[in-house]
């Protein structure tokens, strides 16, 4: 069992609305990420589920039980924390054993369970060390072990990777995902790092300003961001958002991009919104260099470029300081200010409303 349901949940701090009536469901065995920038309400949401913050309004259920008024210890949740929150006066073994000691589990069982979990998290060699003697990675593994040592309906992971260095982060990210899948755990993971969310989640809930922006699988979130916020927040480098003016001449639709008039037919676009002004969104990977002079190309100059191992990231000045990024192969020879023509992969082009920022559908 491991289901979480939030029904129009609010978090108010005085007059400040941190979470604005969000509803969501997490299913058994699912890994769900709450993704958003700092201050978006994701941590407040997690803490309301944990019972560390009062639910101001609305209802929350775990396994069908209303938890609004339950103590954290009675909610069948386990939690790991951004800054580890280890007990500084206890060694690794005792830290991990803590939830079991609280429940008066016999010593022998504690020992075997702690050793087992430490084995799978690779911290068996630290059992007698104190947290202050450990690296950030080992501390966080200890924190995770403490959360995983006991069965819980849902495991709450609060920015557990943020304080780790890049290598540790990548390693632990993979291990958390593996353990979650193997043990079929239900997890709610809070992060501001879109890469982590994409890498680990079955579903992602993107939040901003106390509200849910989009709920979807990593593919949905990446391929069809529901609004400009999600589009710009997810993806590195972020999606290019280009201001477009539509012109119809002789029944043909033209797009004006940075002063360049482009024929929609030649761009290969099947559909464009019936609006005069809108945004066009395209991921850098879906922009290609094309040879000079070919129709459907947008011309510009190389503003900057950087080789990054397997690829080169290049920003193109389309004029008026409008920059778009494209990703090219590593061996491309480029020069600053070199003229360049680019084309868009038509099937990956998205349109967004200028006023509402929402994705425009056919």
């Amino acid at each position, binding site marked *: 069992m491991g289901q979480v349901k939030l029904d129009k949940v609010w978090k108010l701090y005085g007059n400040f609305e941190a979470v604005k009536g969000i509803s969501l469901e997490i299913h058994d065995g699912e890994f769900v990420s709450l993704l958003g920038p700092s201050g978006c309400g994701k941590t407040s949401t997690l803490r309301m589920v*944990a*019972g*560390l913050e009062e639910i101001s309004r609305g209802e929350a259920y775990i396994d069908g039980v209303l938890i609004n008024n339950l*103590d*954290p*210890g*009675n909610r069948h*949740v*386990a*939690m790991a*924390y951004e*800054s580890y*929150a*280890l*007990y*500084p*006066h*206890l060694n690794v073994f005792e830290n991990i054993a*803590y*939830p079991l*000691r*609280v*429940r008066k589990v016999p010593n022998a069982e504690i020992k075997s369970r702690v050793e087992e979990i430490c084995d799978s998290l690779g911290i068996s060699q630290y059992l007698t060390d104190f947290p202050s003697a450990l690296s950030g990675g080992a501390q966080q593994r200890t924190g995770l072990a*403490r959360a995983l040592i006991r069965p819980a309906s849902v495991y*709450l992971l609060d920015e557990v990777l943020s304080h780790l260095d890049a290598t540790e982060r990548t390693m632990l990210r993979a291990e958390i995902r593996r353990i979650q899948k193997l043990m079929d755990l239900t997890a709610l993971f809070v992060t501001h790092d879109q890469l982590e969310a994409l890498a680990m989640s079955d579903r992602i809930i993107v939040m901003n300003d106390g509200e849910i922006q989009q709920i979807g699988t990593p593919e949905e979130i990446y391929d069809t961001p529901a609004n400009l916020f999600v589009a710009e927040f997810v993806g590195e480098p972020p999606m290019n958002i280009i201001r477009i003016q539509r012109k119809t001449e002789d029944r043909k639709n033209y797009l004006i991009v940075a002063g360049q008039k482009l024929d929609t037919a030649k761009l290969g676009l099947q559909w464009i919104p019936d609006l005069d002004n809108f945004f066009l969104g395209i991921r850098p990977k879906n922009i290609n260099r094309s040879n000079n002079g070919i129709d459907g190309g947008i011309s510009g100059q190389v503003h900057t470029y950087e080789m990054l191992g397997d690829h080169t990231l290049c920003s193109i000045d389309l004029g008026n300081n409008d920059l778009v990024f494209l990703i090219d192969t590593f061996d491309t020879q480029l020069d600053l200010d070199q003229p360049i023509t680019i084309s868009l992969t038509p099937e990956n082009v998205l349109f967004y409303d200028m006023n509402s920022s929402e994705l425009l559908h056919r």
Partner: protein
Amino acid sequence: MSKLQGNTAIQRSEHRFAIITALPGLIALIVLVAGPLLYMFFNSLFIKTLAAPIPPQFNWFGNYGKVLSDSRFWNAFKNTMIIMGVGIPVQAFLGLTIALLLSKPFPGSRVIVAMFLIPVMITPIVSGFQWKIILNQRFGPMNYLLGILIGMEPKSWLAEPFLAMVSILIMDTWQWTPFVTVVLLAGLSAIPKQVYEASSVDGSTMWGTLWRVTLPLLKPMFTLVVLLRIIFIFKIFDPVYILTGGGPGISTETLSLLTYITGFKNFNVGITSTLAVVQLIAMVIIAKLFMKLVMGRKER
């Protein structure tokens, strides 16, 4: 030193600079700390008094023998230990309880904390006289309150040896519990909030968290405050001097008061220095014993 040999002139001058800048502080430390201490020890080896114009007489450790065989010294030592043995646990317990109550901010808690510091800030003379009035046998509020609250007969707080000691403990506790509270509050505020949250999510009760998390983490501050109190109680003077003057008889005379009387009433330099050295040694021993107790608990 061989490491230094390959160094350039710049580095050597850096070293010289470091030494030169540290020197005045070092000398000041030696002069201010070691100097008087040595002089005190030196004096303790002499029969030396200012009450009569007689030349100092070297006496080996005779003064120590005299002090250590003096019943008045042991009486003062006993009294100091009683104040320490009763006062510190009581103050630590009260201070901890109040600190825990105040550790979660509530409306007005800052004002209460500020008010708590008042006893520490009031001149001991003033608070001493206050307590003298409060404890007055005939018209003091203490007897009055105890009378209407629990129907107790009026007590001669300051006139009976046992009650006089209780009175000193009451005033000392009133004076110093806030200090203990404030230090422990600082210790409590240094405990990361998240640790408490972790403990609550881990399913621990309030008492469990107090016992398993708060108290162990408070130990360094607790140790500090108890050590400070041990030192302060060796110096305890005002409550004794003002409330009882060491009386009745010498039933509340403490080491510090005895030292004061020997020094400033009898002007016996030799014995006073001896008393000071003995106190210093006693203080170090007690502090060490306490540290051993604290450290020993760690390895369980």
